């Protein structure tokens, strides 16, 4: 439930932020945008109210007040950029709180100050609008009548299902199973295992473990690997699988496992009939003693009491049917297995399989690019520069691992571009350029490669300055080799060397020593390369290239 809340609201926040950033340079928000922003923030307020996240609810309500006023009385004197900043302030606050929640912490942020700011802002536009004397109804906050309290998430507790299978040659598998239980006992906060009576010595129990493996449910603060290590010293063990599960699954015990219907595809019908006849003789096979499921116990599975599904439900059902979300760890595991397979078997089918799985791991760069839009906005405002932002090819897909780690280096390059690349409006005017600078973020795929480019139309890199600095700081050992003998690639490559800096003064955003060398390192770690091209006076282009999987 909390997952759903976080998922839906983070999408709404993203939409909200995009909309606002798209219109940051407009005179004001148009009616459509006001309505859309109002609706989004209203939805966030509603669900946060039900979840009892009071601060989020209060901030959302306050911002809703503003957009309610804009919608109802259509004031003319609305400081636009200030409003853009307030909305972004709100989305930042809520995102921050949601991050805490998703990590199992409490949403304990204080929105007091932010609410005060929004209040002041609303008062200001209301006052300047007062001459008409229009009276509009207040936007009253109605407390929801139903609440949801998320279960306590002790951030360190995990629930796991552990499956152990033993080699056929293993003797006394029940004793081996017991050893596994003992190994885990010390780290377990709670533990269940199946079959239960491993020490009874019943032949049927031993048979069951041999055939179906030994199963353990464990609640612990340890990681998967540690569990494996604790169990895994035994050479009789064929395989250990550890899957993380949630509390509800843990609580269900082994019910779902033991009620599983296994379909025997190998035996003939006659064989199956004969076997099932045999099984009826008492004691021939170990029959697990599972607690009976009481009628009504799983009423959860019924659609329930003749209720009609709401249109909203249907929509979310539809969405879920076309997408299923899979834990990344499961995909990683699949990847791992397929890599092993390919190592042994390089047939066309195996390679095809590998490609298909890799294709499942790619995601579009869109949200990463949108983050950069925000950064350009923030920094250019702080530095008093006028910078436009353009995205091209943001739907280009790239491996999830790269998307996750590309943000930092990309952010660094974008920051540098705004800070050092783009000139102040006055400087630009002097140079005969448009006062507004521009950062373009583009991506695309060529044969075998995915590239991401950050281009600016700023002052560009100065070869001579870089070379002079490099000589000063001892990056060039050869004092006689003339400047002309170094090509552009070599010269611009110098700025990615550890410790190299050309910036005269240190600003808040860049030039603090953590520089291009770290960016280079990050990109290298992801298996990518970085190229720099620049023309003095016209701008710089940073191109990252990654091998397509």
């Amino acid at each position, binding site marked *: *439930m*909390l997952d*759903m809340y976080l998922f839906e609201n983070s999408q709404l926040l993203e939409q909200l932020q995009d909309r606002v950033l798209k219109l940051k340079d407009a005179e004001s928000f148009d009616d459509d945008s006001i309505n859309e922003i109002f609706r989004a923030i209203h939805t966030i307020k509603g669900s946060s109210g039900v979840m*009892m996240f009071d601060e989020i609810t209060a901030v959302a309500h306050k911002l809703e007040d503003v957009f309610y006023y804009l919608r109802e009385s259509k004031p003319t004197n609305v400081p636009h950029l200030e409003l853009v900043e307030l909305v972004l302030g709100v989305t930042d606050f809520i995102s921050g709180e949601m991050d805490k929640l998703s990590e199992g912490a409490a949403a304990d942020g204080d929105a007091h100050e932010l609410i005060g700011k929004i209040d002041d802002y609303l008062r200001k536009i209301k006052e300047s609008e007062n001459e008409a004397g229009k009276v509009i109804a207040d936007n009253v906050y109605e*407390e929801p*009548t*139903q*609440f*949801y*309290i*998320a*279960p*306590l998430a*002790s951030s360190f507790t995990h629930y796991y299902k552990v499956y152990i299978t033993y080699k056929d040659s293993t003797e006394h598998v029940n004793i081996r199973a017991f050893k596994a239980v003992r190994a885990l006992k010390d780290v377990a906060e709670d533990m269940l295992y199946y079959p239960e009576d491993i020490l009874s010595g019943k032949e049927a129990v031993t048979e069951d473990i041999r055939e179906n493996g030994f199963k353990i449910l464990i609640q612990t603060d340890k990681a998967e690997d540690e569990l494996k290590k604790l169990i895994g010293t035994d050479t009789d063990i064929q395989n250990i699988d550890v899957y993380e599960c*949630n*509390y*509800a699954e843990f*609580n269900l015990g082994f019910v779902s496992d033991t009620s599983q219907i296994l379909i025997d595809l190998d035996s003939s019908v006659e064989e199956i009939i004969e076997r099932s006849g045999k099984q009826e003789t008492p004691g021939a096979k170990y029959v697990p003693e599972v607690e009976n499921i*009481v*009628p*009504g*116990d*799983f*009423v*959860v599975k019924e659609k*329930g*009491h003749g*209720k009609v599904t709401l249109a909203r*439900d249907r929509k979310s059902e539809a969405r879920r049917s076309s997408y299923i979300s899979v834990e990344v760890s499961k995909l990683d595991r699949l990847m791992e297995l397929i890599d092993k397979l390919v190592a042994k078997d390089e047939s066309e089918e195996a390679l095809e399989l590998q490609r298909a799985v890799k294709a499942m791991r790619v995601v579009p760069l869109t949200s990463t690019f949108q983050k950069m839009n925000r950064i350009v906005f923030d920094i250019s405002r702080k530095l008093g520069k006028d910078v436009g932002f353009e995205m091209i090819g943001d739907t280009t897909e790239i491996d999830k691992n790269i998307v996750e780690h590309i943000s930092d280096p990309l952010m660094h390059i974008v920051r540098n571009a705004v800070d050092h690349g783009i000139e102040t409006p006055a400087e630009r005017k002097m140079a005969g350029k448009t006062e507004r600078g521009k950062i373009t973020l583009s991506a695309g795929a060529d044969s075998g490669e995915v590239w991401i480019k950050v281009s600016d139309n700023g002052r560009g890199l100065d070869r001579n300055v870089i070379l002079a600095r490099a000589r000063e700081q001892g990056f060039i050992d050869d004092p006689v080799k003339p400047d002309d003998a170094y090509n552009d690639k070599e010269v611009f490559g110098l700025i990615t060397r550890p410790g190299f800096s050309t910036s005269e003064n240190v600003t808040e955003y860049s030039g603090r020593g953590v520089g291009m060398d770290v960016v280079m390192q990050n990109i290298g770690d992801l298996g990518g390369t970085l190229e720099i091209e620049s023309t003095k006076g016209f701008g710089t282009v940073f191109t990252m290239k990654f091998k397509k999987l």
Partner: protein
Amino acid sequence: MRILLAEDDFVTRKFMMNFLAKYGDCDVTVDGMEAIDAFMMALEEDEPYDLVVLDIMMPVMDGYQALSGIRNIEKERGIDKEHGVKIIMATALNDEKNVKMAFDLGCTVYSGKPIDQDRFEQGLKKLGLIK
């Protein structure tokens, strides 16, 4: 305040009883059927409960059946929604589907287990059951 708890699991029951005892007198039942009986009895004796806490997975009648049973009894007796008893579902089932069904059936608070005691108390405050 008078509290009715329906919880079939012994350990959880003991824990919940201790926890709820802080806020009022707590009666205990072990399944949904008993909970409905207790709820009706209290109405008839004119000493209605202020709060009902229901587990969902329970024998005989589950928490959902108990919840809709109680709301139906209230409807029959002409008790309007505002004056109906506050019902908290306390359960390990945390699927969106489960929560929605409980809300549709008229539960007031849906609280996932393990119970977050601070927020549970915050919820009781919101409902005006404690100060």
